[in-house]
């Protein structure tokens, strides 16, 4: 694939105290994240956590109430067209015009995007065995998702944003879609943001992680760095939080023991041990689940989210 315009040295995505209010309710608040070009970001959060709000502000479909978000240095206020050109978007439920043929959809893509890559679209359809003449409504859900993904890829934008791309697909179609997605972005230099509420789908694909709950970023950073900065401790149930090494993220009490995910200083990874304690490296899924279950950040005892700037890259 062709190397994409990465917009110079600007980060692929930079959100600075980004917030969006709907009436009196904040859909997203105080979101500060910086994602380098080439990252494949898993944006994880339960339904209603603000994922779509964040994505729509990244794309430029929604303006922030406060703060700012830029994509390769462009904000939608200052450069609305340049911004749209830099993001390929696969919306939830992969919307397509049902009475269009696949060829019509591609014609639309070509008409609405100067950088449209017709060859890429046709090659993908051929590889997936989807005839261009077929009407969208006669395609299976998995095939429709593939056509919609192809629309986003053929736009040739350096940032690809996928909102719950597989949530409406059956398990086989999910697997095929994710496999194809991995193959499609590998080695392209594309920056990808995939929103999902299913953690397991993202583990193999993503090298970057943003966990969002209640409209707030709980943790964000490169997956490897985050894993290195956390340990899963098993301690006697009576152990108070204050005696734990590092910052407890989430604690589960179970019989005689408690399982606690703690954030440690990655520069000093040797967790001081006590008899009866057990320290294990944290897994991707355990880490994400711990942050998803963490009490709201406003509660006493928790500092600000662990953000990219705190994690050495």
């Amino acid at each position, binding site marked *: 694939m062709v190397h994409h315009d990465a917009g110079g040295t600007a980060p692929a995505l930079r959100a600075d105290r980004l917030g969006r209010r709907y009436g009196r309710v904040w859909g997203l608040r105080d979101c500060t994240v910086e994602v380098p070009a080439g990252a494949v970001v898993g944006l994880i959060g339960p339904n209603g956590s603000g994922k779509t709000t964040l994505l729509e502000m990244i794309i430029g479909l929604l303006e922030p109430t406060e703060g700012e978000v830029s994509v390769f240095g462009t904000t939608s206020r200052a450069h609305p067209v340049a911004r749209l050109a830099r993001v390929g978007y696969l919306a*939830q439920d992969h*919307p397509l015009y049902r009475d269009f043929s696949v060829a019509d959809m591609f014609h639309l893509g070509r008409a*609405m995007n100067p950088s449209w890559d017709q060859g890429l679209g046709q090659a993908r359809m051929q590889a997936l065995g989807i005839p261009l003449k077929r009407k969208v409504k006669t395609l299976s859900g998995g095939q429709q998702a593939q056509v919609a993904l192809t629309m986003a890829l053929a736009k040739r934008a350096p940032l690809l944003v996928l909102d719950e791309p597989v949530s409406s697909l059956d398990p086989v179609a999910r697997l095929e879609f994710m496999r194809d997605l991995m193959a499609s972005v590998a080695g392209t230099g594309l920056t990808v943001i995939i929103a999902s509420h299913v953690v397991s789908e993202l583990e193999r694909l993503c090298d970057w992680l943003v966990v969002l709950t209640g409209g707030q970023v709980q943790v964000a950073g490169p997956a490897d760095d985050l894993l290195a900065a956390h340990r899963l401790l098993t301690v006697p149930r009576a152990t108070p939080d204050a005696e734990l090494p590092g910052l407890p993220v989430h604690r589960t009490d179970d019989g005689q023991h408690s399982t606690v995910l703690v954030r440690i200083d990655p520069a000093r990874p040797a967790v001081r041990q006590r008899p009866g304690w057990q320290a294990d490296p944290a897994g991707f899924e355990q880490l994400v689940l711990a942050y998803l279950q963490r009490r709201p950040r406003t509660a006493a005892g928790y500092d600000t989210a662990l953000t990219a700037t705190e994690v050495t890259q």
Partner: protein
Amino acid sequence: MIWVSWRQHRSQAIACLGVLAALAIYAIVVGTSMRTAFSHDGLPACLGRSQGTICQAAVQAFTGEFGSAVNIAFYSVLLIAPGLLGVIIGAPLIASELEYGTWRLAWSQTIPRTRWLAVKLALVTGGLIVLGAAMTAVITWYRAPMDRLTGHFLQNIYDYEGLVLTAYILCAFGFGVLAGLLIHRSIPAMIAAFIPWLAIRLVVEFLLRSRFLAPVTLVQNCAGLCVESGQNGGTGISAIPPATGHIGDWVLSIGGNAQGTQTVITYQPADRFWIFQSIEAGIFVALTAAALGATIWLLHRRSA
């Protein structure tokens, strides 16, 4: 973008052509027999020499035969037809994108959504103008013999000849597009757009139209034979020619003076037809522009 708009509205365009073809076939079938009867009854010669006064029986026979086909059957349908046509095309233009989620696809392409909308509106508006003009031409041709007896100012004639028919369609279309953006669902948006359209349409027709220009007053001395006050105003087909004695005048009122020696007629002269058409079309085109302008502005601001 032109291709995209065409592709999305292709089936509507074909359906509109179908409606137009059906109208044209009806017009040719009924219009041809009307023309034959018109010549057969000797009406052209009669109208050439008078305002229909020397062939009252022939006029009555002709209007008796064709009056109902022209006026009643058509009128109730045609009163709401431009509104229905406009809202059916207008309401889904944005509402269907919001309904089916395709707005996320359409508005995340490189072309900004305001340009997307502007091109669509320009194309569909242009198509509706062509459609409205074609329907007007068909109806005008079809009604031509009857119009020679009645003029163009009667409600059910005035509304479908000249400029206003197209303007009615455009106005309903504009209301439909705006309602679609506000309501997000096609069918409720059609209803929400149609009701104000019909209200404005009826208010303009029955309250405002006769006041577009100050009427002309005609005073006739009548030496004991004055027309009684409250008599048929002469705007119906039964009164040919109208009380002014001139075909096509729109008689608003007929009354006597206090002494009973004069008849006072107020009317809009037939030659004001195009001025009135322009004023009324102007009102509806202005409403269209306001609705479409508001839509573009709201869509531009929608993200904020």
